[in-house]
Structures are given as C-alpha cells and as structure tokens.
C-alpha cells in the first residue's frame, strides 16, 4: 500500500498503524511529532491510528535553529 512519508512515496504493509511505521524506522518515540494529512496525532493515538492508501504522513523532529 503506497502512502507518502515525509514527501516520499513509501510502501507500507496494509493495516499498519503509526506506531508500526515508527518502529520500522527505528525512531526514538519521545523525540518526534506526527502529522497525518495535516492533523497532529498525539502519541497516545499512534497505536490506534491506521494508515490508508495515499495518506500523507509527516514525521517531524525539533532540532537546533536560529
């Protein structure tokens, strides 16, 4: 199933939730922000938010900046 993750088309297993995606990417859970189709998804909903075809997922982190 194709979804967009951080601007790139990515193939994910159907019925994946956000938590699954984060796990496969090996990301530190406390350091990221999830925006799905323009809505922020709170961490407690990552495991019950499932991805659908053509979803636009942004995985964002806070870094140093001026």
């Amino acid at each position, binding site marked *: 199933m194709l979804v967009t993750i*951080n*601007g790139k088309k990515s193939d994910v297993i159907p019925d994946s939730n956000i938590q699954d995606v984060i796990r496969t*990417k*090996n*990301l*530190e859970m*406390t*350091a*990221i*922000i999830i*925006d799905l189709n*323009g809505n*922020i998804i709170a961490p407690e909903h990552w495991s019950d938010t499932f991805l659908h075809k053509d979803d636009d997922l*942004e*995985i*964002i*982190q*806070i*870094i*140093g*900046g*001026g």
Partner: protein
Amino acid sequence: MEDKLKIGDKELDSRLFIGTGKFADYSLIPKVIESSKAQVVTVALRRVDFGTPEENMLTFLSQNIVLMPNTSGARNASEAIRIARIARAAGCGNWVKIEIINDQKYLLPNNFETIKAIEVLAKDGFIVLPYMSPDLTAAKMMAEAGAAAIMPLGAPIGTNRGLKTRELIQILISEINLPIIVDAGIGRPSEAAEAIEMGAAAVLVNTAIATADDPVLMAEAFGQAVDAGRKAYLAGPGATHQFAEASSPLTGFLRNE
C-alpha cells in the same frame, strides 16, 4: 530599577535571544544559555531524516526557557502557518518566529507572505515575532496584523556582518510602537551593544556564538554586551558636538533687536 522586556504574556530580564542552529554539539547549548543568561531560544522543525536521525533538541532545554520555534523552511504564508501549528501542538508553547524565505541566494525574508502569516497566527492565539527586511511600511502592516514584536535583520542571515541596516532599524525603533529585535547579521558583542544602545529591545544571535572558537565564552560576552548596551540606552548618552564654533553666525542679525 526594574527594566523588563514585555512581549506577549512574558516579562523577560534578558535582552539576548539565542538561536540553537549550527552548534557542533547540542550539549553546548545548556552551557551557552547559562553563560549568556538568555531566556528565549529559537528552535526549528524538520522532517526526520531516516538515515541520520538527530537527538531530541528539547531534552537539552530546561523548563523555564521560552521556546520560540521558527518556521524556517517555509516558502510562503501557508507553509509557515502549518509549521507554527505543528510546533504548538508538539508542546513548544505559543511563541513563533515567522521566517519565510524564498530567496535562496541571499536568504532574505519575504515581507509580504510574512504579513499574511501574522494575520492568521495572531488571530489563532500565537505570540508572533516576524523576522523581516527592515521596511517601515511592512513593519506597520505587521504591527497592524498583530505582531508582538518586529525582528528586522541587521545584515543577511549568517553573514556576521553587523548592523548594516542601522539607519532603517533606527526608523523602525522611532516609528513602531512594538519591541524591535535585531535578528540576523550581528557578528560581535560590540554590534549587539550598539543595537541595544540605539534602542532595540533585544537581539537574536546564533551564528556568532555557535561558530566562535569558544561558544560558551562568546555567549557570556554577548550577554554582557547586551546588558551594557541597555544600561547606556537607559542612561542617555552625553552630547557629541557637531556645531563647535560657527564661522558665520546665523542669528547675528537679532543683536539690534
């Protein structure tokens, strides 16, 4: 004497804002904040790069710091608005530095898109601090749109060239009834002192500290320079005389009166 800088809902003692970009190591940042006594720091939002994930910036910042996420990367108002909302939702508070750049050569900000973004975000409850090219009309429109302060650039971002826009910033200080914070361009503590001495409410410094040989010591120097500049501003500089002795008096004709 109490001399606080009031912006939005905050009262600040320090007039030095610090940017956290370009540091070799995030672990320097708490030390820089401590030595400079800064209370406001900027952070940025980025898409995670899955190849090289970075450490979580926020774990290096203490709770009593005012976070000012910037919208760097935004090329227009709607991107800036989106970034601001993500930052707030992520727990960065309601301050935002609007930075909209679609000039990749000089990295100069787009004042027009910035005004549009301010309008939306100010109505949405943000404390909006726009980074801008010093222009009086644009600054007036930003103030009207609901900006909490105006942040004109002293020189193009990252150049360390100092207060090249001094005359224009002076006009903003005189005409705009909001704190004027010089952002970008300040390369040395003496330039930070100069900006504050002429009436700027604060300065935002990043590159000059982050790229110093000893960032922690440089941060301390900036903190002291800003304090000195503020004291000089409050004290009111003495007279420098331009009209020492007139060679041909203009009021001599009054003597017969």
